[in-house]
């Protein structure tokens, strides 16, 4: 009997040790998000947490001054107005985008992307908008710019200030999607052998030619963006594709599984930071 008790207590002690130091390869999104945030907060002690969503402007005073002046008359205004009109315009069958979204699509940007248990995949806002169109007999929009950017700009605008609230449900497929996004983020690729993290975790605030690199924390909160370089609006899809081609990697198709998982990961680790889109970037 005494021997059995000793065995049991030894087993208990072993299990305590295991839970105190989980194996490093067991996925733990909550711990990831905390470590991710702490990394940036420690690296940039002067930047307020909610200011990370302002990307390069949180890192450079001169750029910030220029941006503040620009925001008085923001270049995304035309897209915002077009988005508002498009959002309210009915489809041929009389329904509108509002019928496809919770709360009529107003102030819901912070809940995207989410994991859809029925279809077993990550649903981004851009994908949801196009699914809404096809479900109502309309042709899908291009994911990268113009109409899609205007629509997401309007939806982001109605959600400004609301903190990202991305949930990872207790579903191994959701966790796998998160892990895939995380892997994509940290994997080096392309001729220049850069990962997303090489620029946006290792070097935010540093110059890449004339640009100031944005921190990965809160980087999606400002989407979609008007980029002066593009002379127009761009969606998250456009940003991912351009990032890949700039590092001379082969971009994936817009809204590919990898890109959606990446968006899921990046949004999750920015949980709690406010939506600030649409944004303006040089």
């Amino acid at each position, binding site marked *: 009997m005494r021997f059995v008790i000793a065995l049991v207590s030894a087993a208990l002690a072993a299990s305590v040790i295991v839970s105190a130091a989980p194996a490093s390869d067991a996925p733990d999104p909550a711990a990831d998000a905390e470590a991710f945030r702490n990394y940036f907060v420690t690296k940039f002690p002067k930047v307020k947490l909610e200011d990370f969503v302002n990307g390069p402007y949180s890192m450079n005073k001169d750029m910030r001054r220029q941006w503040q002046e620009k925001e008085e008359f923001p270049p995304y205004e035309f897209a915002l107005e077009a988005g508002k009109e498009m959002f309210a315009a009915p489809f041929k069958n009389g329904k509108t985008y509002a019928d496809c979204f919770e709360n009529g699509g107003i102030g819901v940007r912070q809940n995207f992307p989410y994991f859809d248990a029925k279809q077993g995949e990550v649903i981004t806002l851009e994908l949801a908008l196009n699914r809404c169109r096809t479900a109502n007999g309309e042709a899908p929009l291009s994911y990268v710019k113009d109409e899609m950017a205007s629509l997401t700009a309007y939806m982001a605008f109605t959600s400004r200030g609301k903190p990202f609230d991305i949930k990872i449900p207790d579903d191994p497929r959701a966790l796998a999607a998160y892990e895939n996004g995380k892997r994509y983020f940290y994997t080096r690729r392309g001729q220049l052998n850069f990962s997303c993290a090489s620029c946006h975790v290792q070097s935010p605030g540093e110059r890449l030619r004339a640009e100031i690199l944005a921190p990965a924390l809160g980087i999606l909160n400002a989407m979609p963006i008007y980029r002066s370089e593009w*002379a127009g609006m761009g969606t998250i899809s456009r940003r991912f594709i351009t990032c890949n081609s700039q590092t001379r990697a082969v971009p994936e198709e817009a809204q590919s599984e990898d890109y959606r998982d990446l968006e899921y990961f990046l949004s999750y680790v920015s949980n709690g930071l406010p939506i600030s889109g649409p944004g303006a970037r040089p």
Partner: protein
Amino acid sequence: MASTIRVRAIANGDTTEVQALIQHPMDSGFVKDAQGAVIPAHFIQQLSFEHNGKRVFLADWGPAVAKDPYVKFAFKGAAKGDELKISWVDNKGASDSTTAKIQ
């Protein structure tokens, strides 16, 4: 269609600061589309701001000005509540104009 011109004019003392944003493709005529065909030049040639019938700002623009141009300038002699008329004409003969109240 909504106006292609956004204006904000704010009087501060005897100076009025004007900001305007204009929606226009401003094609230079040197760019090709995805099929390799040249996109014909299409740009604003003249932009004018008038206060009480008097021209306070005139810009002669060409193809080198960027898409959706933004203008900011200040002038003297206007008061709050005055009207400012803004108009542009492009190389294809299209035009637009709007009036804004000085705030």
